[in-house]
């Protein structure tokens, strides 16, 4: 049995592309194409998910990918990664400081009186999950007036762009280990394969690009009992990180642009200090492109779980670096699942041949055994 060429494959594939486009535009005269700006802004959380899982902060291209893939986040992230693979890497960036993020939201479940105060920002946390039927036939006029009305009614307050981190206050109180700046260079998962054991920077990079649902599922297993992180959110912040690069002529750091990010630090159970110092809380850290709080929290929990697994050996799946890091990438896992749709005619033919042979042998043995009994 060998591979065989068939006549109509190419035409069928071309037809499938046309069929997809026909369904995308099926509204016909009654419809209007989605603008990238509308996707980027009105579906901002979807765009956030794709920039994060695609590993490339390019909201406009993420919006294009969402449009092209008709809302499939896995395919959209795949398209974004395919795009990035065509581009050269131009420079090595200095380490950016997330304490300089221009925040639009910051909360803590550890303290109510955090330095700078708590600001809920844009969130559904306190919204009733009831359908807003008025959105079903929202008029363009009503739509356009919302943002300007919000700005007119805002309280007059001169707030800073940046706020101190809650962890700094905990450190100042001696409740956390001092922050050490590690000299070890970061692991680049786009250039190097994950060969275990991997450094923590590889785990952070992998989880930052992970598929949200996969990351959440494994973190949820830890939350429900297959683990013992018991997290408290020290701080969850959403904001725009200014990216500072040295000016090629002057060498002075200048802002090249900004990146919307979500960052989360969780405080977990305290442990004895290795150097006979007083016990201190342990920490987990999560961050990702865009506004995606569930992902950042899940990542922070898994970071803490993996720290334990890397140090003491895993007791649960969520503490096993190999289990977690090799199963959370959306493009990897989607690719493996999708490959089962590809023709497996030869291997399946072989399976059938073996089954028939086994069935035939089983039938013969039954006949032989029956004849033996009769004899």
């Amino acid at each position, binding site marked *: 049995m060998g591979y065989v060429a068939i006549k109509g494959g190419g035409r069928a594939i071309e037809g499938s592309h046309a069929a997809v486009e026909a369904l995308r535009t099926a509204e016909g005269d009654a419809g209007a194409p989605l603008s990238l700006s509308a996707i980027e802004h009105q579906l901002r959380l979807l765009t956030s998910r794709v920039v994060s899982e695609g590993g490339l902060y390019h909201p406009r291209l993420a919006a294009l990918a969402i449009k092209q893939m008709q809302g499939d986040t896995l395919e959209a992230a795949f398209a974004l990664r395919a795009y990035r693979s065509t*581009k050269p*890497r131009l420079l090595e960036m200095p380490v950016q*400081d997330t304490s300089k993020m221009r925040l639009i939201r910051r909360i803590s479940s550890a303290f109510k009186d955090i330095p700078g105060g708590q600001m809920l*920002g844009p969130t559904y946390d306190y919204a009733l999950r009831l359908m807003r039927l008025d959105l079903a036939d929202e008029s363009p006029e009503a739509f356009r007036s919302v943002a300007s009305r919000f700005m007119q009614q805002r309280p007059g307050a001169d707030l800073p762009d940046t706020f101190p981190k809650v962890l700094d206050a905990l450190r100042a109180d001696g409740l956390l280990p001092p922050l050490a700046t*590690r000299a070890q260079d970061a692991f680049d998962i786009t250039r190097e394969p994950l060969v275990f054991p991997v450094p923590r920077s590889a785990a952070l990079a992998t989880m930052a690009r992970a598929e949200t649902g996969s990351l959440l599922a494994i973190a949820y297993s830890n939350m429900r009992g297959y683990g013992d992180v018991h997290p408290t959110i020290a701080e969850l912040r959403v904001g725009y990180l200014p990216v500072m690069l040295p000016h090629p*002529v002057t060498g002075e750091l200048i*802002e*090249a642009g900004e990146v919307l990010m979500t960052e989360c630090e969780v405080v977990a159970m305290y442990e004895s200090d290795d150097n006979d110092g007083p016990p201190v809380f342990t920490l987990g850290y999560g961050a990702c492109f865009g506004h995606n709080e569930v992902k950042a929290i899940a990542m922070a929990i898994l970071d803490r779980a993996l720290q334990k697994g890397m140090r003491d050996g895993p007791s649960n799946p969520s503490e096993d670096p190999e289990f977690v890091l090799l199963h959370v990438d959306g493009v990897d896992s989607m690719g493996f699942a999708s490959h089962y749709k590809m023709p497996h005619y030869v291997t399946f033919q072989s399976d059938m041949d073996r089954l028939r042979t086994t069935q035939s042998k089983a039938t013969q043995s039954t006949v032989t055994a029956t004849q033996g009994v009769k004899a």
Partner: protein
Amino acid sequence: MTLTYPMPEGMPVRAQWPRLLLACPPESVRALARRLCEQHAVQDIQLPQSGLALLKLRDSAQGEAYYPGEVPLAVARVRVTSADGTLSEGAAQLLDDRASLARAIAVIDAVLAGQLPGHEAALPVLAAGQARLSEQKAQRQALLATTRVDFSLLGTTEEDDDE
């Protein structure tokens, strides 16, 4: 040689120019750069190019550097020579994928830094960028100011606060 001139009072510092120019409509930045290119000789020191850069952060739990992903990057570097022979170098590195925009900003950067003839035309563009950024800042502050939690309303005694 490249000279550095004292900037006029009230003018934003050089480190802010790229951000201000990025906040402007790209066509206004390109139009300004086109006019400056007609006025001066512009030589590319580094050809305009678009690509990517790995964003590098340090986690706040253990102080470890890691890469959360990549960002688009457009770069350009030019040398501008005015009619009287004055040289000035300019550059741009933008989180953007438009190499032509990076070159336009590099040209404006050079002309402004050397205060070459025509640099005055860039001042209103910078001011327009500043106005847009102020508007953006006001929008973001409104998100914070309208959602600031007043915990003093939750209880009047310490026992209440502990709940």
